């Protein structure tokens, strides 16, 4: 078996605030194989975005990586200097953000921004860089890329802007792309277009991808593996089909139950009571304890991640091991 493109081990990213230490990511481990898409799913404040930012080295103070390792092609990203990291970022690892209006510079034309990115990592002529930029724009499905290169970001629609952002991420054919909710702000038909492009790209170029989202339905169609995060920890991970068909952790179970299309029309949705706890003030033991229908005294002790079923890691003392309910 070949080594995975990325292997995260016991990652801890903490924010040292005046109110106390916020453990946004607290012991997260997962790996992504070559050409695979890993779906990182969670609700607001679960630490999914901070995990992504940690990988690409964009955690700002007061936050920092407090422990663990991020092995990318054998190198530990957590230990690289800023200079070495800058050499990788945008080159071997790229990121796509949720809001393309924030990532594109509004006062520079697309060609300026793209050529700059190409020349930042490769010693090529201006003309070659422009050529590369044009080809990449074409690859992500932007019509007449030659003319569009001369446009400013505001002249693009939301979907097209996100395509430009994806094209910039692809300029150096990175081995890994971290995508943080890239289709959340887009309309359904446009989201479908982007997802189709991304799928095609991963299959043809062998790029690995971490797809961060709160939307289980997007991950269902796109990802190979899935990791569900809650309060800074991964509570369950495994192959997409396995996790979504037979969720073992009560949180995953509840999350899938809350999706309207899984419920009968007009009937009350199976809801998870309560709300996500503040990371400053986590309950003792399992963080999901207070909202969990299966919680018991035993949950006061911190559950550990364990491979309960082959290929399925779960952090729970009372997993759903019985046969799944007939849907």
């Amino acid at each position: 078996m070949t080594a995975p493109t990325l292997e995260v081990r016991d990652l801890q990213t903490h924010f040292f605030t005046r109110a106390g230490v916020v453990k946004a990511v607290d012991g997260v481990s997962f790996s992504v194989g070559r050409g695979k898409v890993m779906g990182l799913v969670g609700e607001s404040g679960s630490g999914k975005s901070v995990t992504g930012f940690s990988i690409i080295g964009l955690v700002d103070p007061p936050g920092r990586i407090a422990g663990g390792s991020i092995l990318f092609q054998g190198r530990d990203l957590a230990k690289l200097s800023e200079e070495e990291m800058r050499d990788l970022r945008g080159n071997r690892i790229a990121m796509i953000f949720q809001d393309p209006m924030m990532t594109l510079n509004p006062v520079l034309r697309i060609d300026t921004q793209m050529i700059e990115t190409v020349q930042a990592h490769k010693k090529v002529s201006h003309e070659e860089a422009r050529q590369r930029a044009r080809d990449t724009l074409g690859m992500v499905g932007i019509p007449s890329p030659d003319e569009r290169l001369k446009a400013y970001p505001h002249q693009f629609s939301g979907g097209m802007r996100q395509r430009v952002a994806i094209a910039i991420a692809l300029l150096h054919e990175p081995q890994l792309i971290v995508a943080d909710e890239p289709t959340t702000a887009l309309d359904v038909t446009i989201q479908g277009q982007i997802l189709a492009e991304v799928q095609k790209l991963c299959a043809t170029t062998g790029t690995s991808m971490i797809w961060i989202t709160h939307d289980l339905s997007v991950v269902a169609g796109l990802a190979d593996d899935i990791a569900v995060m809650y309060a800074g920890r991964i509570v369950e991970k495994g192959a997409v089909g396995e996790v979504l068909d037979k969720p073992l952790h009560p949180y995953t179970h509840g999350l899938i139950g809350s999706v309207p299309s899984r419920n009968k029309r007009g009937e009350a949705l199976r809801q998870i009571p309560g709300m996500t706890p503040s990371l400053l003030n986590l309950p003792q033991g399992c963080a999901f304890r207070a909202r969990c229908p299966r919680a018991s005294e035993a949950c006061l002790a911190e559950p550990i991640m364990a491979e309960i079923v082959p290929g399925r890691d779960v952090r729970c003392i009372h997993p759903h091991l019985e046969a799944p309910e007939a849907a």
Partner: protein
Amino acid sequence: MTAAPMLELRGITRRFEKKLDFAGRIAQRLGAPVREEVVHAVDGVDLTVRKGEVVGLVGESGCGKSTLGRMVAGILPPTEGTILRDGRDIKALTGAEARQMKLRTQMIFQDPYASLNPRLRVLDIVGEAPRVHGLLGGAIFDDYVDEQMRRAGLDPAFKRRYPHQFSGGQRQRIGIARALAVKPDFIVCDEAVAALDVSIQAQILNLFMRLRQELDLTYLFISHDLGVVEHLSDRVVIMYLGRVVEEADTETVFRWPNHPYTRSLLDSVPRIENRKRAFSVVKGEIPSPLNPPAGCHFHPRCPLAMERCRVEVPKLREIAPGQRSACHLNDQ
């Protein structure tokens, strides 16, 4: 004859115009290619909502669904057309009667962070309108507010807090309590769960369904999320660039969609049941409502477009009992 429907829209149109300023007019005189910009946000929409119904209004950005919702709620006046409430034209009402009518339709907004006044306590946010309109009915102000908060699933002990002390889901409950405090019978929900996490969204949707039964409410539920609309609505209306393209009861729309746009919309929705599948693609982008295509607005993206679609606007007409669609293909 059956009773008049709760709400009836006839040929509702809303245009937003940007008039030329002084310099613009001079430039135009001198032959510069500037002109007034007119957005047809909503273009001749007919819609009927019967009492007790939940009607889902679906569409992508720029299709006019929010503008329509605002006109129904009385926040925006329509440019053309009439809005009938219980069979009476709301423009013809005056004085106390008009005020009464306005109170009976309330709106719940998308962003629970922007729709609550940050400088008011929950007590005043929820209680101000019923006090001003004299709806307390002899109850003590605090008791009345307590009851409204409890009904929306909020602990009345928090009534002296400010909005920033609540989470997103709780804020949405405050918005719901505020809307229901004036005893409306019709609620317009404009993307009311779009900003919430999945588990919180389920809680709020359940609350909507419970309140519907408890208070006999009628909803116009505006959303881009087809899963939510399918779950909640009795009838679904699909809009594209200011016009209604299809309308039918929920099961028909999701099982036998007629309009090509409805079909591509349904195909694009990611579903949790679909694994590792090739996402189907509608070609092209949503055109700008500033300059919509002639004829059927959907023709540049439609896989089945014909010559006729480029010139003639298709009429919304009944193709099966209870199902209306605006597509020329139904004429063949």
